[in-house]
Protein backbone atom coordinates (compact mmCIF):
# COMPACT_ATOMS: atom_id res chain seq x y z
CA UNK A 1 0.00 0.00 0.00
CA UNK A 2 1.31 3.42 -0.87
CA UNK A 3 2.02 5.31 2.30
CA UNK A 4 3.25 8.47 0.62
CA UNK A 5 2.18 9.65 -2.80
CA UNK A 6 3.81 12.55 -4.57
CA UNK A 7 2.11 13.77 -7.72
CA UNK A 8 3.24 16.42 -10.17
CA UNK A 9 5.17 18.54 -7.70
CA UNK A 10 6.71 21.65 -9.23
CA UNK A 11 8.81 24.32 -7.54
CA UNK A 12 10.53 27.34 -8.87
CA UNK A 13 13.11 29.55 -7.15
CA UNK A 14 13.51 32.83 -8.94
CA UNK A 15 14.66 31.91 -12.42
CA UNK A 16 15.37 28.29 -11.65
CA UNK A 17 12.82 25.48 -12.05
CA UNK A 18 14.09 23.12 -9.38
CA UNK A 19 11.26 20.63 -9.37
CA UNK A 20 9.70 19.77 -12.67
CA UNK A 21 6.77 17.52 -12.00
CA UNK A 22 7.86 14.82 -9.57
CA UNK A 23 5.78 11.65 -9.27
CA UNK A 24 6.57 8.86 -6.86
CA UNK A 25 5.11 6.59 -4.22
CA UNK A 26 6.62 5.09 -1.11
CA UNK A 27 5.21 1.72 -0.16
CA UNK A 28 4.36 1.03 3.44
CA UNK A 29 6.99 -0.89 5.30
CA UNK A 30 9.64 -0.33 2.65
CA UNK A 31 12.97 1.36 2.61
CA UNK A 32 12.90 3.53 -0.47
CA UNK A 33 15.88 5.41 -1.81
CA UNK A 34 16.09 8.68 -3.72
CA UNK A 35 19.28 9.14 -5.68
CA UNK A 36 20.54 11.47 -8.33
CA UNK A 37 23.37 13.87 -9.13
CA UNK A 38 23.87 17.08 -7.20
CA UNK A 39 21.35 19.72 -8.05
CA UNK A 40 18.69 17.30 -9.23
CA UNK A 41 16.30 18.59 -6.58
CA UNK A 42 16.29 15.76 -4.04
CA UNK A 43 16.61 17.89 -0.91
CA UNK A 44 14.16 20.42 -2.27
CA UNK A 45 11.64 17.64 -2.80
CA UNK A 46 12.03 16.50 0.79
CA UNK A 47 11.65 20.06 1.97
CA UNK A 48 8.44 20.37 0.01
CA UNK A 49 7.07 17.10 1.37
CA UNK A 50 7.81 18.21 4.90
CA UNK A 51 6.30 21.64 4.41
CA UNK A 52 9.47 23.71 4.62
CA UNK A 53 8.68 24.98 1.14
CA UNK A 54 5.31 25.31 -0.52
CA UNK A 55 5.13 23.70 -3.94
CA UNK A 56 3.96 25.74 -6.90
CA UNK A 57 1.87 22.84 -8.10
CA UNK A 58 1.14 19.20 -7.43
CA UNK A 59 0.06 17.10 -4.45
CA UNK A 60 1.52 15.25 -1.54
CA UNK A 61 -0.66 12.60 0.01
CA UNK A 62 0.02 10.63 3.14
CA UNK A 63 -2.17 7.57 3.34
CA UNK A 64 -5.30 9.16 1.96
CA UNK A 65 -4.73 12.59 3.50
CA UNK A 66 -3.74 15.54 1.39
CA UNK A 67 -0.86 17.14 3.24
CA UNK A 68 0.26 19.45 0.46
CA UNK A 69 1.43 22.77 1.84
CA UNK A 70 0.98 21.76 5.47
CA UNK A 71 3.40 23.59 7.79
CA UNK A 72 6.13 21.29 9.12
CA UNK A 73 4.56 20.84 12.54
CA UNK A 74 1.38 19.58 10.96
CA UNK A 75 3.27 17.20 8.71
CA UNK A 76 4.99 15.82 11.78
CA UNK A 77 1.68 15.41 13.54
CA UNK A 78 0.33 13.53 10.54
CA UNK A 79 2.93 10.85 11.23
CA UNK A 80 6.13 11.81 9.47
CA UNK A 81 9.56 12.74 10.79
CA UNK A 82 12.55 14.40 9.16
CA UNK A 83 16.29 14.07 9.74
CA UNK A 84 18.26 16.91 8.14
CA UNK A 85 21.50 16.41 6.30
CA UNK A 86 23.17 19.07 8.41
CA UNK A 87 21.80 18.31 11.85
CA UNK A 88 19.57 20.99 13.28
CA UNK A 89 20.01 20.28 16.93
CA UNK A 90 19.39 22.62 19.83
CA UNK A 91 22.98 23.18 20.75
CA UNK A 92 22.55 24.84 24.12
CA UNK A 93 20.10 22.22 25.33
CA UNK A 94 21.30 18.90 26.70
CA UNK A 95 21.52 15.83 24.49
CA UNK A 96 18.79 14.26 26.58
CA UNK A 97 16.50 17.24 26.05
CA UNK A 98 17.20 17.14 22.34
CA UNK A 99 15.94 13.57 22.22
CA UNK A 100 12.95 14.07 24.49
CA UNK A 101 11.78 17.02 22.43
CA UNK A 102 11.18 14.66 19.53
CA UNK A 103 8.56 12.62 21.35
CA UNK A 104 5.01 12.94 20.23
CA UNK A 105 2.08 14.44 22.05
CA UNK A 106 3.63 15.37 25.34
CA UNK A 107 1.07 16.59 27.82
CA UNK A 108 3.53 18.82 29.56
CA UNK A 109 4.05 20.85 26.42
CA UNK A 110 0.77 22.66 26.76
CA UNK A 111 0.65 25.84 28.82
CA UNK A 112 -2.14 24.84 31.18
CA UNK A 113 -1.05 21.25 31.61
CA UNK A 114 2.50 22.34 32.38
CA UNK A 115 1.26 24.52 35.21
CA UNK A 116 -1.62 22.48 36.57
CA UNK A 117 -1.39 18.86 35.50
CA UNK A 118 2.01 18.37 37.06
CA UNK A 119 1.49 14.82 38.24
CA UNK A 120 0.49 13.63 34.81
CA UNK A 121 3.39 15.06 32.88
CA UNK A 122 5.96 14.21 35.50
CA UNK A 123 5.12 10.58 35.04
CA UNK A 124 5.29 10.97 31.30
CA UNK A 125 8.64 12.75 31.60
CA UNK A 126 10.14 9.88 33.54
CA UNK A 127 8.99 7.37 30.97
CA UNK A 128 10.29 9.51 28.14
CA UNK A 129 13.59 9.95 29.91
CA UNK A 130 13.98 6.19 30.20
CA UNK A 131 13.19 5.75 26.56
CA UNK A 132 15.52 8.55 25.56
CA UNK A 133 18.28 7.07 27.62
CA UNK A 134 17.73 3.75 25.95
CA UNK A 135 18.13 5.40 22.58
CA UNK A 136 21.31 7.12 23.71
CA UNK A 137 22.69 3.78 24.80
CA UNK A 138 21.90 2.41 21.38
CA UNK A 139 23.78 5.32 19.84
CA UNK A 140 26.64 4.68 22.26
CA UNK A 141 26.56 8.10 23.83
CA UNK A 142 24.75 7.77 27.17
CA UNK A 143 27.59 9.55 28.92
CA UNK A 144 26.77 12.69 26.93
CA UNK A 145 23.15 12.77 28.08
CA UNK A 146 23.45 15.84 30.28
CA UNK A 147 25.99 17.68 28.20
CA UNK A 148 24.94 20.42 25.80
CA UNK A 149 24.44 19.10 22.31
CA UNK A 150 27.04 21.56 21.10
CA UNK A 151 29.72 19.38 22.67
CA UNK A 152 29.01 16.42 20.42
CA UNK A 153 31.33 15.52 17.61
CA UNK A 154 30.12 15.72 14.02
CA UNK A 155 29.45 12.01 13.80
CA UNK A 156 27.62 11.98 17.11
CA UNK A 157 25.47 14.86 15.94
CA UNK A 158 24.41 12.91 12.88
CA UNK A 159 23.55 9.93 15.04
CA UNK A 160 21.58 12.11 17.39
CA UNK A 161 19.61 13.54 14.50
CA UNK A 162 18.57 10.00 13.65
CA UNK A 163 18.08 9.11 17.30
CA UNK A 164 15.46 11.83 17.46
CA UNK A 165 13.64 10.12 14.65
CA UNK A 166 13.59 6.93 16.71
CA UNK A 167 12.08 8.86 19.55
CA UNK A 168 9.45 10.38 17.29
CA UNK A 169 8.18 6.93 16.22
CA UNK A 170 6.81 8.17 12.94
CA UNK A 171 5.04 6.06 10.38
CA UNK A 172 7.29 7.49 7.69
CA UNK A 173 10.80 8.77 8.23
CA UNK A 174 12.52 11.05 5.73
CA UNK A 175 16.30 11.08 5.95
CA UNK A 176 18.52 13.41 3.96
CA UNK A 177 21.90 11.76 3.44
CA UNK A 178 22.29 10.13 6.86
CA UNK A 179 25.67 8.70 5.97
CA UNK A 180 27.14 11.85 4.47
CA UNK A 181 30.44 12.98 5.90
CA UNK A 182 30.80 10.14 8.39
CA UNK A 183 33.32 7.33 8.60
CA UNK A 184 32.48 4.04 6.86
CA UNK A 185 32.10 2.29 10.21
CA UNK A 186 29.67 4.89 11.43
CA UNK A 187 27.79 4.80 8.15
CA UNK A 188 27.28 1.09 8.54
CA UNK A 189 26.08 1.65 12.07
CA UNK A 190 23.59 4.19 10.81
CA UNK A 191 22.18 1.74 8.35
CA UNK A 192 21.96 -0.95 10.97
CA UNK A 193 19.91 1.52 13.00
CA UNK A 194 17.70 2.06 10.01
CA UNK A 195 17.19 -1.66 9.65
CA UNK A 196 16.07 -1.72 13.26
CA UNK A 197 13.60 1.03 12.52
CA UNK A 198 12.19 -1.02 9.71
CA UNK A 199 11.71 -3.92 12.06
CA UNK A 200 9.64 -1.64 14.23
CA UNK A 201 7.43 -1.01 11.24
CA UNK A 202 8.67 2.44 10.31
CA UNK A 203 8.72 3.15 6.58
CA UNK A 204 11.87 4.86 5.44
CA UNK A 205 12.44 7.26 2.57
CA UNK A 206 16.05 8.20 2.17
CA UNK A 207 18.19 10.48 0.04
CA UNK A 208 21.55 8.92 -0.39
CA UNK A 209 24.73 9.38 -2.34
CA UNK A 210 26.37 6.26 -0.97
CA UNK A 211 24.84 3.91 -3.47
CA UNK A 212 26.84 0.96 -2.14
CA UNK A 213 24.96 1.17 1.15
CA UNK A 214 21.62 1.80 -0.43
CA UNK A 215 21.88 -1.11 -2.80
CA UNK A 216 22.04 -3.53 0.10
CA UNK A 217 19.20 -2.08 2.11
CA UNK A 218 16.67 -0.52 -0.22
CA UNK A 219 13.55 -2.15 -1.64
CA UNK A 220 13.05 0.44 -4.30
CA UNK A 221 15.07 3.28 -5.75
CA UNK A 222 14.00 6.46 -7.49
CA UNK A 223 16.49 8.24 -9.67
CA UNK A 224 16.03 11.96 -9.94
CA UNK A 225 17.45 14.16 -12.63
CA UNK A 226 16.83 17.85 -13.29
CA UNK A 227 13.78 18.00 -11.04
CA UNK A 228 11.94 14.92 -12.21
CA UNK A 229 12.04 11.17 -11.77
CA UNK A 230 14.13 9.55 -14.48
CA UNK A 231 13.99 5.96 -13.38
CA UNK A 232 12.48 3.78 -10.69
CA UNK A 233 12.50 0.19 -9.64
CA UNK A 234 14.30 -2.36 -7.47
CA UNK A 235 17.97 -1.47 -6.90
CA UNK A 236 19.44 -4.10 -9.12
CA UNK A 237 17.24 -3.17 -12.05
CA UNK A 238 17.91 0.51 -11.67
CA UNK A 239 21.65 0.26 -11.45
CA UNK A 240 21.82 -1.90 -14.53
CA UNK A 241 19.68 0.43 -16.59
CA UNK A 242 21.65 2.48 -19.14
CA UNK A 243 19.65 5.59 -18.18
CA UNK A 244 21.18 5.34 -14.75
CA UNK A 245 24.65 5.75 -16.17
CA UNK A 246 23.79 8.49 -18.56
CA UNK A 247 22.36 10.52 -15.70
CA UNK A 248 25.49 10.07 -13.64
CA UNK A 249 27.67 10.70 -16.65
CA UNK A 250 31.25 9.93 -15.90
CA UNK A 251 30.56 8.55 -12.46
CA UNK A 252 29.38 5.08 -13.31
CA UNK A 253 32.72 3.43 -12.93
CA UNK A 254 32.68 4.10 -9.18
CA UNK A 255 29.50 2.27 -8.58
CA UNK A 256 30.18 -0.96 -10.36
CA UNK A 257 30.67 -3.34 -7.46
Amino acid at each position, binding site marked *: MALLTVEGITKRFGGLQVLNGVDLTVAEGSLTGLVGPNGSGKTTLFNVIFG*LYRPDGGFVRFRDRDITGFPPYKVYQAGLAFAFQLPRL*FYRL*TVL*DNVILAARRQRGESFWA*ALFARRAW*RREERDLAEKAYGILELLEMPHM*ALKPAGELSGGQRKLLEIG*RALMAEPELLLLDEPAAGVSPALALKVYELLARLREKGITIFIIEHRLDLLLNFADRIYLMDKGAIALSGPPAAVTEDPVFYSVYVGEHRKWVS
Partner: protein
Amino acid sequence: MAADPLIYVLDMLVFIGIFSLLAISLNLEYGFTGLGNFGKVAFFMAGAYTYALMIETGAPILVSLLGGATVAGLLGGLVSLPALRLREDYLAIVTLSFGEILRLFVKAQEGFTGGVHGIQVPAAFTAFVASPRLFGLANVVLVYLVAGVAFLFVQALINTPYGRVLRAIREDDVAVQVLGKNPVLYKVQVLVAGSFLAGLAGGAFAQYMRFIDPYMFLPLVTFYVWIALILGGPANNWGAVLGALVVEIFNRGTRIAKDYLVLPVDPNNLQFIMFGVLIILLLLYRPQGILGESRLRTPAFRRWEHGAADR
Protein backbone atom coordinates in the same frame (compact mmCIF):
# COMPACT_ATOMS: atom_id res chain seq x y z
CA MET B 1 13.14 63.55 48.10
CA ALA B 2 12.32 62.70 51.70
CA ALA B 3 14.93 63.31 54.31
CA ASP B 4 13.73 60.24 56.14
CA PRO B 5 16.23 57.45 55.36
CA LEU B 6 13.69 54.72 56.08
CA ILE B 7 11.31 56.12 53.52
CA TYR B 8 14.17 56.38 51.09
CA VAL B 9 15.04 52.75 51.55
CA LEU B 10 11.42 51.71 51.23
CA ASP B 11 11.11 53.78 48.10
CA MET B 12 14.15 52.08 46.64
CA LEU B 13 12.82 48.66 47.55
CA VAL B 14 9.54 49.36 45.80
CA PHE B 15 11.34 50.37 42.64
CA ILE B 16 13.60 47.35 42.79
CA GLY B 17 10.52 45.17 43.15
CA ILE B 18 8.75 46.77 40.19
CA PHE B 19 11.85 46.54 38.06
CA SER B 20 12.37 42.93 39.00
CA LEU B 21 8.87 42.16 37.87
CA LEU B 22 9.50 43.89 34.55
CA ALA B 23 12.82 42.11 34.15
CA ILE B 24 11.21 38.75 34.87
CA SER B 25 8.56 39.44 32.28
CA LEU B 26 11.21 40.27 29.69
CA ASN B 27 13.18 37.23 30.75
CA LEU B 28 10.26 34.99 29.91
CA GLU B 29 10.01 36.58 26.47
CA TYR B 30 13.64 37.07 25.57
CA GLY B 31 15.75 35.04 27.97
CA PHE B 32 13.84 31.81 27.55
CA THR B 33 12.02 32.18 24.25
CA GLY B 34 14.30 34.51 22.34
CA LEU B 35 11.69 37.17 21.59
CA GLY B 36 13.32 40.59 21.31
CA ASN B 37 10.52 42.73 22.74
CA PHE B 38 11.61 46.36 22.58
CA GLY B 39 8.23 47.72 23.58
CA LYS B 40 8.06 46.55 27.17
CA VAL B 41 7.15 50.05 28.39
CA ALA B 42 3.95 49.99 26.34
CA PHE B 43 2.49 47.14 28.38
CA PHE B 44 3.79 48.66 31.59
CA MET B 45 1.97 51.84 30.65
CA ALA B 46 -1.23 50.05 29.66
CA GLY B 47 -1.31 48.36 33.04
CA ALA B 48 -0.66 51.61 34.85
CA TYR B 49 -3.36 53.61 33.08
CA THR B 50 -5.92 50.83 33.26
CA TYR B 51 -5.27 50.46 36.97
CA ALA B 52 -5.66 54.22 37.45
CA LEU B 53 -8.94 54.33 35.59
CA MET B 54 -10.32 51.29 37.36
CA ILE B 55 -9.40 52.43 40.83
CA GLU B 56 -11.09 55.75 40.13
CA THR B 57 -14.33 53.98 39.51
CA GLY B 58 -14.00 52.49 42.95
CA ALA B 59 -12.88 48.99 42.05
CA PRO B 60 -10.92 47.20 44.77
CA ILE B 61 -7.17 47.17 44.49
CA LEU B 62 -6.72 43.55 43.54
CA VAL B 63 -9.36 43.73 40.86
CA SER B 64 -7.79 46.87 39.45
CA LEU B 65 -4.36 45.30 39.41
CA LEU B 66 -5.64 42.23 37.62
CA GLY B 67 -7.65 44.44 35.32
CA GLY B 68 -4.55 46.39 34.36
CA ALA B 69 -2.63 43.18 33.85
CA THR B 70 -5.38 41.69 31.72
CA VAL B 71 -5.59 44.71 29.45
CA ALA B 72 -1.83 44.63 29.06
CA GLY B 73 -1.95 40.93 28.33
CA LEU B 74 -4.63 41.36 25.70
CA LEU B 75 -2.61 44.13 24.15
CA GLY B 76 0.35 41.78 24.06
CA GLY B 77 -1.75 39.20 22.30
CA LEU B 78 -2.93 41.76 19.79
CA VAL B 79 0.57 42.95 19.00
CA SER B 80 1.92 39.43 18.79
CA LEU B 81 -0.37 38.25 16.07
CA PRO B 82 1.14 40.29 13.26
CA ALA B 83 4.51 40.85 14.86
CA LEU B 84 5.67 37.38 15.78
CA ARG B 85 6.27 36.14 12.31
CA LEU B 86 8.76 38.94 11.78
CA ARG B 87 12.44 38.40 12.05
CA GLU B 88 14.25 39.80 15.06
CA ASP B 89 15.17 43.25 13.83
CA TYR B 90 11.72 43.98 12.43
CA LEU B 91 10.17 42.70 15.65
CA ALA B 92 12.37 45.10 17.58
CA ILE B 93 11.46 48.07 15.41
CA VAL B 94 7.75 47.22 15.44
CA THR B 95 7.58 46.77 19.21
CA LEU B 96 9.60 49.93 19.80
CA SER B 97 7.33 51.88 17.46
CA PHE B 98 4.28 50.41 19.11
CA GLY B 99 5.49 51.68 22.46
CA GLU B 100 5.93 55.16 21.08
CA ILE B 101 2.59 55.14 19.28
CA LEU B 102 0.82 54.17 22.47
CA ARG B 103 2.59 56.86 24.43
CA LEU B 104 1.78 59.53 21.85
CA PHE B 105 -1.79 58.33 21.69
CA VAL B 106 -2.19 58.63 25.44
CA LYS B 107 -0.48 62.00 25.36
CA ALA B 108 -2.89 63.26 22.73
CA GLN B 109 -6.01 62.12 24.52
CA GLU B 110 -7.08 65.01 26.68
CA GLY B 111 -10.26 63.84 28.27
CA PHE B 112 -9.84 60.16 28.74
CA THR B 113 -6.31 59.81 30.04
CA GLY B 114 -5.54 63.36 31.02
CA GLY B 115 -3.21 63.84 28.09
CA VAL B 116 0.02 65.55 28.97
CA HIS B 117 -1.27 66.41 32.39
CA GLY B 118 -1.57 62.85 33.53
CA ILE B 119 -3.97 61.47 36.10
CA GLN B 120 -4.07 61.35 39.82
CA VAL B 121 -4.40 57.87 41.17
CA PRO B 122 -6.40 57.61 44.37
CA ALA B 123 -4.48 55.68 46.96
CA ALA B 124 -5.82 52.24 47.62
CA PHE B 125 -4.35 52.09 51.09
CA THR B 126 -6.32 54.99 52.44
CA ALA B 127 -5.54 53.91 55.96
CA PHE B 128 -1.82 54.28 55.40
CA VAL B 129 -1.72 57.50 53.47
CA ALA B 130 -1.48 59.47 56.65
CA SER B 131 1.76 57.82 57.58
CA PRO B 132 4.34 57.90 54.80
CA ARG B 133 6.34 55.16 56.42
CA LEU B 134 3.44 52.79 56.65
CA PHE B 135 2.43 53.67 53.13
CA GLY B 136 5.90 52.85 51.95
CA LEU B 137 5.93 49.60 53.87
CA ALA B 138 2.51 48.57 52.63
CA ASN B 139 3.63 49.13 49.08
CA VAL B 140 6.81 47.17 49.57
CA VAL B 141 4.75 44.27 50.82
CA LEU B 142 2.33 44.56 47.92
CA VAL B 143 5.00 44.85 45.27
CA TYR B 144 7.07 41.95 46.57
CA LEU B 145 4.02 39.79 46.96
CA VAL B 146 3.11 40.39 43.34
CA ALA B 147 6.69 40.05 42.14
CA GLY B 148 7.13 36.91 44.19
CA VAL B 149 4.09 35.28 42.66
CA ALA B 150 5.32 36.24 39.21
CA PHE B 151 8.75 34.81 39.93
CA LEU B 152 7.28 31.51 41.09
CA PHE B 153 4.97 31.41 38.11
CA VAL B 154 7.76 31.84 35.60
CA GLN B 155 10.03 29.41 37.44
CA ALA B 156 7.25 26.85 37.47
CA LEU B 157 6.57 27.31 33.79
CA ILE B 158 10.18 27.13 32.77
CA ASN B 159 11.17 23.80 34.28
CA THR B 160 8.61 21.83 32.36
CA PRO B 161 8.32 20.29 28.90
CA TYR B 162 6.69 23.59 27.94
CA GLY B 163 9.79 25.44 29.08
CA ARG B 164 11.92 23.02 27.11
CA VAL B 165 9.99 23.86 23.97
CA LEU B 166 10.49 27.57 24.67
CA ARG B 167 14.22 27.18 24.89
CA ALA B 168 14.19 25.09 21.75
CA ILE B 169 12.27 27.84 19.96
CA ARG B 170 14.94 30.25 21.06
CA GLU B 171 17.62 28.07 19.48
CA ASP B 172 15.93 27.24 16.19
CA ASP B 173 12.28 27.89 15.57
CA VAL B 174 12.24 25.96 12.32
CA ALA B 175 13.72 22.78 13.78
CA VAL B 176 11.08 22.96 16.47
CA GLN B 177 8.40 22.77 13.80
CA VAL B 178 9.98 19.71 12.30
CA LEU B 179 9.51 18.09 15.70
CA GLY B 180 5.82 18.87 15.68
CA LYS B 181 5.55 22.02 17.78
CA ASN B 182 3.95 25.18 16.44
CA PRO B 183 6.22 28.04 17.52
CA VAL B 184 3.69 30.76 16.78
CA LEU B 185 1.33 29.40 19.40
CA TYR B 186 4.05 29.37 22.04
CA LYS B 187 5.30 32.81 21.14
CA VAL B 188 1.83 34.32 21.40
CA GLN B 189 1.29 32.68 24.78
CA VAL B 190 4.64 33.92 26.06
CA LEU B 191 4.04 37.45 24.84
CA VAL B 192 0.60 37.53 26.44
CA ALA B 193 1.98 36.21 29.72
CA GLY B 194 4.93 38.59 29.65
CA SER B 195 2.70 41.53 28.89
CA PHE B 196 0.35 40.48 31.68
CA LEU B 197 3.24 40.58 34.13
CA ALA B 198 4.37 43.94 32.81
CA GLY B 199 0.82 45.21 33.28
CA LEU B 200 0.89 44.04 36.89
CA ALA B 201 4.07 46.03 37.39
CA GLY B 202 2.36 49.02 35.82
CA GLY B 203 -0.59 48.82 38.18
CA ALA B 204 1.68 48.55 41.20
CA PHE B 205 3.66 51.51 39.90
CA ALA B 206 0.55 53.65 39.46
CA GLN B 207 -0.60 52.67 42.91
CA TYR B 208 2.65 53.73 44.50
CA MET B 209 3.29 56.91 42.56
CA ARG B 210 -0.30 58.07 42.96
CA PHE B 211 0.13 60.04 39.79
CA ILE B 212 1.07 59.03 36.25
CA ASP B 213 1.68 60.91 33.04
CA PRO B 214 3.03 59.97 29.62
CA TYR B 215 6.52 61.25 30.45
CA MET B 216 7.02 58.40 32.86
CA PHE B 217 6.77 55.87 30.06
CA LEU B 218 9.55 56.75 27.70
CA PRO B 219 11.54 54.10 25.78
CA LEU B 220 14.14 54.64 28.49
CA VAL B 221 12.15 52.32 30.74
CA THR B 222 12.39 49.55 28.18
CA PHE B 223 16.10 50.17 27.93
CA TYR B 224 16.56 49.97 31.70
CA VAL B 225 14.78 46.64 31.76
CA TRP B 226 17.03 45.31 29.00
CA ILE B 227 20.17 46.43 30.79
CA ALA B 228 18.93 44.82 33.97
CA LEU B 229 18.27 41.54 32.18
CA ILE B 230 21.53 41.37 30.29
CA LEU B 231 23.53 42.45 33.32
CA GLY B 232 21.99 39.87 35.60
CA GLY B 233 21.94 37.07 33.08
CA PRO B 234 19.31 36.26 30.47
CA ALA B 235 17.40 33.02 30.97
CA ASN B 236 17.92 33.22 34.70
CA ASN B 237 15.18 34.60 36.91
CA TRP B 238 17.58 35.27 39.74
CA GLY B 239 19.68 37.12 37.22
CA ALA B 240 16.70 39.29 36.33
CA VAL B 241 16.23 40.23 39.96
CA LEU B 242 19.93 40.84 40.45
CA GLY B 243 20.08 43.01 37.38
CA ALA B 244 17.11 45.07 38.54
CA LEU B 245 18.79 45.54 41.90
CA VAL B 246 22.06 46.70 40.38
CA VAL B 247 20.44 49.08 37.91
CA GLU B 248 18.27 50.67 40.55
CA ILE B 249 21.13 51.04 43.04
CA PHE B 250 23.30 52.56 40.35
CA ASN B 251 20.47 54.93 39.48
CA ARG B 252 20.14 55.96 43.09
CA GLY B 253 23.85 56.17 43.56
CA THR B 254 24.25 58.80 40.92
CA ARG B 255 21.35 60.79 42.29
CA ILE B 256 22.87 60.74 45.76
CA ALA B 257 26.20 61.74 44.35
CA LYS B 258 24.53 64.78 42.90
CA ASP B 259 23.45 65.95 46.33
CA TYR B 260 26.51 65.09 48.32
CA LEU B 261 29.48 65.24 46.01
CA VAL B 262 30.73 67.98 43.78
CA LEU B 263 31.64 66.33 40.53
CA PRO B 264 32.92 67.98 37.37
CA VAL B 265 30.28 66.08 35.50
CA ASP B 266 26.52 66.18 35.99
CA PRO B 267 25.80 62.79 37.56
CA ASN B 268 22.63 62.41 35.58
CA ASN B 269 24.53 62.56 32.32
CA LEU B 270 27.34 60.51 33.75
CA GLN B 271 24.88 57.80 34.66
CA PHE B 272 23.65 57.42 31.13
CA ILE B 273 27.09 57.59 29.66
CA MET B 274 28.20 54.88 32.02
CA PHE B 275 25.14 52.76 31.33
CA GLY B 276 25.75 53.03 27.61
CA VAL B 277 29.39 52.09 27.93
CA LEU B 278 28.58 49.36 30.43
CA ILE B 279 26.06 47.67 28.19
CA ILE B 280 28.46 47.76 25.27
CA LEU B 281 31.24 46.23 27.35
CA LEU B 282 28.87 43.59 28.71
CA LEU B 283 27.74 42.64 25.25
CA LEU B 284 31.31 42.44 24.04
CA TYR B 285 32.87 40.56 26.90
CA ARG B 286 30.18 38.91 28.97
CA PRO B 287 26.88 38.69 27.16
CA GLN B 288 25.65 35.96 29.47
CA GLY B 289 25.59 38.46 32.32
CA ILE B 290 26.73 37.99 35.88
CA LEU B 291 24.88 34.78 36.63
CA GLY B 292 24.64 33.22 33.21
CA GLU B 293 21.84 31.02 31.99
CA SER B 294 20.03 28.77 34.42
CA ARG B 295 19.87 25.05 33.73
CA LEU B 296 16.69 23.45 32.63
CA ARG B 297 15.62 21.39 35.59
CA THR B 298 12.88 19.10 34.45
CA PRO B 299 12.28 15.76 36.16
CA ALA B 300 14.19 14.13 33.34
CA PHE B 301 17.25 16.19 34.11
CA ARG B 302 17.00 15.62 37.81
CA ARG B 303 16.60 11.90 37.35
CA TRP B 304 19.78 11.51 35.36
CA GLU B 305 21.68 13.96 37.44
CA HIS B 306 21.13 11.82 40.50
CA GLY B 307 20.90 8.49 38.79
CA ALA B 308 24.07 8.89 36.79
CA ALA B 309 25.83 6.52 39.12
CA ASP B 310 23.46 3.70 38.20
CA ARG B 311 24.58 3.67 34.61
